């Protein structure tokens, strides 16, 4: 019988710090796929419609998805940790209503935005509390609060609309925050940027840094990958979950303020049906419903792809429902194709 005693010497293997970069891995990254999609979208649209590649048109197009995109950033983090918030659109409505009343009470723009964000914060805290205290599945809770929040809006507002807002507030939502600036050189200029899109970009950078560069971000990935192990590693899982719901609420409130300013009015049905659009953005962005996988860059790219596809198609007067068919198909295809690929590539050994 052999008598070897395998006591490993200290430096037995050479272990690299990082894997050697292989082109294949880079190309198969989700973001790259999205970039390709984005480029394709732009090229195709530019070819089919002469109106597509026009800074003003594109700037206007961003108006229509920026508010959703802002909420999508928070939703991305939630889905990353295996949660979801279907009540965001309802929070938008509730916040917008609060803003409506605040405006009648004579608040200024700052006050109005604060009101919206504040109401969002409360709603988010309510969701977070239900999810963490009672350890309930968030999809169920937020289906409930979705009806509750919008319901409250309907109860209070009835068939009324809120239409009185200070002009500065409306300007924030309706005119370009950064004005077009020519520099003489035709291709070099400052494009017009709406406030909502600007906020989205800033927040995207912020969220990107937090998620990919800070300890909290790392902890979120850990929670999403394995909540139990995360808890065993001393990560305050429930605190962070709660926090994310609060953030989601606040961004929904912010979006509510921007939307109100853009529409110059609000009714109880404001933003209805947004939740699924937002979830679509996040999933297309490569955030896995199973948790633990995703990047802010991906979400940003997905937002742009969806926004430009929609804009491009309506430029060609394709009716809304048909557009949504393409979007649905796009979503499924983007998720399915990689799976089909590695199904045919590696056969699982059993």
């Amino acid at each position, binding site marked *: 019988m052999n008598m070897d*005693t395998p006591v490993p010497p200290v430096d037995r293997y050479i272990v690299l*710090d990082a894997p050697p970069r292989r082109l294949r891995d880079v190309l198969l990254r989700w973001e790259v796929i999205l970039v390709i999609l984005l480029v394709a979208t732009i090229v195709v649209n530019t070819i089919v419609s002469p109106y597509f590649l026009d800074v003003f048109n594109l700037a206007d197009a961003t108006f229509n998805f920026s508010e959703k995109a802002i909420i999508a950033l928070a939703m991305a983090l939630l889905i990353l940790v295996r949660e979801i918030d279907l009540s965001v659109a309802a929070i938008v409505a509730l916040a917008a209503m609060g803003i409506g009343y605040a405006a009648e009470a004579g608040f200024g723009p700052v006050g109005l935005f604060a009101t919206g964000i504040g109401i969002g914060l409360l709603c988010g805290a309510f969701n977070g509390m239900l999810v963490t205290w009672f350890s309930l599945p968030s999809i169920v809770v937020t289906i409930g609060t979705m009806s509750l929040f919008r319901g409250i809006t309907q109860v209070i507002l009835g068939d009324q609309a809120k239409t009185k807002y200070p002009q500065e507030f409306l300007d924030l939502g309706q005119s370009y925050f950064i004005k077009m600036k020519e520099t003489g050189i035709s291709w070099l200029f400052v494009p017009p940027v709406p406030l909502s899109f600007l906020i989205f970009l800033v927040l995207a950078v912020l969220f990107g840094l937090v998620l990919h560069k800070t300890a909290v971000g790392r902890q979120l990935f850990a929670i999403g990958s394995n909540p139990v192990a995360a808890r065993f590693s001393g990560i305050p899982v429930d605190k962070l979950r709660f926090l994310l719901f609060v953030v989601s609420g606040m961004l929904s409130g912010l979006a509510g303020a921007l939307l109100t300013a853009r529409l110059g009015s609000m009714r109880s049905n404001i933003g209805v049906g947004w939740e699924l659009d937002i979830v679509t953005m996040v999933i297309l962005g490569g955030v896995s419903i199973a948790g633990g996988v995703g990047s802010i860059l991906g979400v940003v790219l997905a937002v742009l792809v969806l926004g430009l596809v929609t804009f491009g198609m309506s430029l060609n007067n394709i009716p809304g429902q048909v557009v949504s068919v393409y979007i649905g198909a796009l979503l499924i295809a983007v998720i399915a194709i990689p799976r089909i690929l590695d199904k045919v590539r590696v056969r699982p*050994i059993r």
Partner: protein
Amino acid sequence: MSQPILTLSGLSKSFPGVRALHDVSLSLRPGSVTAILGENGAGKSTIVKVLTGIYRPSDGEIRVRGELKSFSSPRDAWAAGIAAIHQETVMFDELSVAENIFMGHMPTGPARFVDWSEMHARAAALLKRIDAAIPPEFKLKRLSVAQKHLVEIARALSHEAQVVIMDEPTAALSANEIDDLFRIVAQLKAEGRAVLFISHKFDEIFRIADDFVCLRDGEKVGEGAIASVTEPQLVRMMVGRPVDQVFPKRDVAIGDVVLSVAGLSNATEYADVSFDLRKGEILGLYGLVGAGRTEAMQGLFGITPKTRGTVTLEGRRLSIGAPSDAITAGISYVPEDRQEQGAIVSLGIRENVTLANLSKYIRGLFLSRTSEQAETRRLGKRLAVKAANWEQKLAELSGGNQQKVVIAKWLATRPKVIVLDEPTKGIDVGSKAAVHDFIGELASEGLAVVLITSELPEVMGLADRVLVMKEGRVVDAFKRGQWSAEAIVGAATGAAKEAA
């Protein structure tokens, strides 16, 4: 010698990165009990899973009564007359006991509708046969771990199979439940069935087995009649070296008390757990599966809520409400369930190692990759983690290396006290020796270690003192030199008490 019911020849099975079985052959005679021995990770359960159609063998053939079989699903195995009690409890908490027993082969009446009364009747009969007073219509979640294991035994018997496989069936049973089980085994023998019995407990093996097959690293290293071997010989076969060398116990100067736990209790899981732990000491915590060791230590670590009890570290009373409190105080807990609680397999080695004390790697606002890498390199090298690079996902590592990474994560927190819960569970011989060696080393560096293990040799080899837990309470304590295997096992199973 009668013609065998079941023969395996040249069986091999490998998983990505792991060779679980290599060219194993064995045969089972009717009316006999064959024991499979082997350390954790030797490949025992893999044989079971191949025999029950859960894994497809990479190579080799299975013959039942001489005819070649290939199992693609447990149903095929049942059809061929093979049933098993699996090692991990795989049951349905939300379903009734009867359903748990008959899931997959429920008795059906006319029009192939499930016949509940029949099912309950047969379930009741089976449970009676193993003297388990469990109502068949109870939901499984109302049962204790031990009762659940009884239900599993009933499930295996429900197939009336010719070959019954039991993978560590006694792990969660108490002494008299084990006696009942052995009565059943004897019964099966008498009925001319073949039993494949897997256990880490030699007394059991010598008690009921006729033949044995010994595995090491997935290869068969010996077989024969139990009567023809002695325990030391078997151990030697399993481990590949004489047992006294397995655990090179270093003599460490034991310092003064670091941690003292008093009256730690929880409503339903454990009660009055008290002990002192000294610098450089290794305190063994022995007990059967489900004895509550894990729960107690998790209570200490702030995971399972504790109703009473005080924890004092270096004279300071700690109030531990969450793991983070324990970590900052200097207590680490390496959980038993590596896949569930320890490793985050979809993250890389570096990310795992630094997870438990990320704040240490923050430079300015952001995490500094270089300082993370430095720490990872230090611990990774020290534990001899085998990997291609420090960014490699844990999913791609072998079980042993995963376990090393998890331990590295806890060492990175620079603990004063480290609790190791079944640290060698399911890791291969090499890493196991390394881990043992390492535990000694930690102690010699002045760390206080609590070692939870269900393996007697391990605890006897490494520990300075041993606490034995049974049904959530500390029932006995032994000092190195003043213990015997019988005494410890007796305390754990309650045999001693019953004898007295």
